[in-house]
């Protein structure tokens, strides 16, 4: 216990160890939060969900905080729906019952627009109920300077989407400008410049049946979205980035732990029994050295299964018989001859007892730094396979986000956030473990002390 405390005090002398520990603790906190906040099934639904889950998000939108760094403020996405009761009266819905089963519905969306660029798109998603006769709506646009622009008049089916940018009539009415520009453009300016202020979208609907109802969601597809932005499938990257943390940690830690422990046990067993057991282990190590590690992993991923657990198993299997087994063996050979092992043998301790209670515990100080330093390599290995397109098919991982971005030529098209966010998270994770492992190595390896 005293030795442990002394070692701990020693470790705390290294600033890199403290920084590494803080990073690792933060990652664990994020992982726990991710696992609690988004259950596994929910993640699968969100990450594999297509348009029906993410229809209200813009495509390729950088995160909102990008606006802090640029002079030109890009519009932030939002959606307003009559289905949800709104406290601040940004959405208002009034229904007036008229004669002969008809009723009138007035819907007003009010929003502030203080940005320097136009949105990607604006859409109205109508949900109506009726038996035989479609309700009819007319949509109006009210600008901050009081102009009223007629957007369109049309009958609404039960589920209907109206996309403003695809309305050719509206485009002609706006003097040939694309509707998303024309509706916001300042009339006093030569070039299309957005007019800032409070805008309103007004829907005046008439329905012709007793229980007919009109609900509509107004979606403003801005150019920035959320804390992490969106990808080509309109998915919120936050989900993937959050959930990537527990996966990266689990893969890295399990692979490092499995590899180090098994290597150590096999080395101990080999040295203890000697003769052909030891010989066999040495030969396997040599064969393993010739095998192409990454190529085999790629083959397993391509031919067999891309499940993260299969890849983890094969990784551990291929990493056990590595060069480390030889260095452990050299140390075990020394330990084997020490007096306390001889004493154990003299009082009749079993082979298993000697190996697991006397040989292996002696090596734990060597095991810990090696284990921590091995984590980044495995975290990056998982990301590397994902970048090659061999990531787990269902789970979101940081490597898979990079792969998605890469396949969409994100760098070429300027969507830097898409690659940078997962890459920086990977780098922080790798650095955290590497820094801690480095300090541990110096504390536990007396030969390196002072060097």
């Amino acid at each position, binding site marked *: 216990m005293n030795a442990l405390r002394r070692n701990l005090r020693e470790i705390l002398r290294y600033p890199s160890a403290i920084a590494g520990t803080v990073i690792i603790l933060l990652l664990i906190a994020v992982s726990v939060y991710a696992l609690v906040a988004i259950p596994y099934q929910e993640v699968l639904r969100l990450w594999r969900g297509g348009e029906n889950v993410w229809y209200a998000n813009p495509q390729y939108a950088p995160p909102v905080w990008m606006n802090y760094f640029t002079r030109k403020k890009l519009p932030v996405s939002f959606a307003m729906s009559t289905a949800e009761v709104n406290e601040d009266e940004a959405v208002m819905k009034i229904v007036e019952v008229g004669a002969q089963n008809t009723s009138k519905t007035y819907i007003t969306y009010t929003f502030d627009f203080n940005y320097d660029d136009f949105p990607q798109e604006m859409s109205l998603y109508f949900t109506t109920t009726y038996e035989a006769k479609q309700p009819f709506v007319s949509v109006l646009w009210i600008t901050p300077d009081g102009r009223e622009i007629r957007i369109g008049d049309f009958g609404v089916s039960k589920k209907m989407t109206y996309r403003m940018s695809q309305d050719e009539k509206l485009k002609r009415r706006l003097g040939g400008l694309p509707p998303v520009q024309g509706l916001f453009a300042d009339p006093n300016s030569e070039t299309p410049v957005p007019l800032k202020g409070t805008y309103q979208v007004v829907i005046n609907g008439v329905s012709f049946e007793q229980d007919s109802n009109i609900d509509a969601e107004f979606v403003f597809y801005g150019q920035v979205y959320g804390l992490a932005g969106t990808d080509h499938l309109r998915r919120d990257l936050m989900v993937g980035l959050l959930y990537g943390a527990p996966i990266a940690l689990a893969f890295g830690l399990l692979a490092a732990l499995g590899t180090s422990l098994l290597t150590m046990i096999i080395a101990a067993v080999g040295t203890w029994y000697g003769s052909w057991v030891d010989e066999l282990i040495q030969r396997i190590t040599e064969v393993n050295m010739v095998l192409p590690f990454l190529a085999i992993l790629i*083959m397993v991923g391509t031919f067999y299964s891309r499940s993260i657990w299969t890849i983890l198993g094969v990784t551990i299997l291929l990493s056990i018989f590595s060069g480390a087994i030889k260095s452990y063996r050299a140390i075990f050979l020394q330990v084997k001859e020490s007096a306390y092992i001889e004493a154990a043998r003299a009082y009749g301790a079993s082979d298993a007892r000697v190996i697991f209670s006397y040989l292996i515990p002696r090596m734990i100080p060597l095991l810990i730094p090696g284990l921590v330093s091995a984590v980044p390599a495995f975290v990056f290995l998982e990301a590397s396979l994902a970048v090659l397109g061999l990531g787990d098919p269902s789970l979101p991982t940081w490597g898979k986000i990079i792969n998605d971005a890469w396949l969409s030529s994100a760098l070429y098209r300027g969507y830097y956030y898409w690659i940078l966010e997962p890459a920086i998270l990977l780098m922080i994770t790798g650095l955290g473990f590497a820094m801690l492992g480095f300090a541990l190595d110096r504390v536990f390896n007396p030969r390196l002390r002072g*060097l």
Partner: protein
Amino acid sequence: MTTLSEAQEISQPVVRKATRSTFVRVLQYSAVRLITLFGTIVVAVYLTIMIANMGGYVDEIMRGEIRERITLQVVNNPANRNLDPDALNKLVLDKIALEEKRLGLNQPLAMRSFRYLANALTLNLGRAVNMTSDSGSRTVRLIILERLPATLLLMGTANLILFFSAIFFALSLSRKYGSFWDKAVIAFSPTSSAPPWFYGIFLILIFAAVLKILPFGGMVDAPPPDNSIGYALSVFKHMTLPATALIISSLFLSIYNWRTFFLIYSSEDYVEMAKAKGLSSRDIERRYILRPTLPTIITNFALLLISLWTGAIITETVFLWPGLGRTYFRAIGLYDTPVIVGLSIVYAYLLAITVFLLDFVYALVDPRVKIGGSGKQS
């Protein structure tokens, strides 16, 4: 341990009679060592063959592909339109059988795997299943040879620069240990936990996407320049980013490792003695630090040379560099076992030859090492 098992005798030939001549000892040692290494290669290559066929799973994929392709071919052929269904069916089955025979799929994998093994060991690499070289050949040897120069150029440049600059910086740091630069290298060495492609992405982002001064990937401009100087310049321009990525990703850690290694050797008594005698630091470095560490340096250099062969699968893929690494990756994607096995066997042979030769090199550079003796072994 009183009785030496047979296996042990093979791997660690202990010379009992000191009177035996050096020649016989070296010969015996070499023979035993060669046999062991060859055995290792046989096992490793056989494993690779089985993995590359996924225990027969790849056969199923290939059979399915053949069936689909031939059926479509026969059905879509206007000449077969007037055949009755039975005859058509027979034609399809015959053609499938012929194609399976051509690819050797009519034999069970267990038998074929030994034929593959024998072919691989004799470097008879055979013909690719799906891949072709740029000149249209299906010969695995040509496919490999066509891609080899690109990999050697990229990996060779990057690794040689890395190796020599790391040793150079490490030597000068070990002299000024504890200085600012020494501490900086220690602080930066955790950055080597990230693989080259990772730095590659950042480099592409900065130099290709934002600054637009270097290309995103590839090996030469399209269309390639006519004159050789322009061609070389274009290749150099394309090589800069991948080579930089390869160097950055391991520079700091290898400087750190070499520096620590040199420091351990420079605290030896004979180095202190040399310092006391007043020898210049250049002499001390050359004669008392580099000389005893030469075997390690040579081992690392040799392993570096053979690592050139495998290329960098992911870095080449990210930078679209037409080297062996990308060929490897494409071969796996196309289930092209002959190419996969061909690349693996050459690597295995290169590794074994290097390991074998290293023993002799040690004896040449380090008088303390005796071949086949009970002294230092690799």
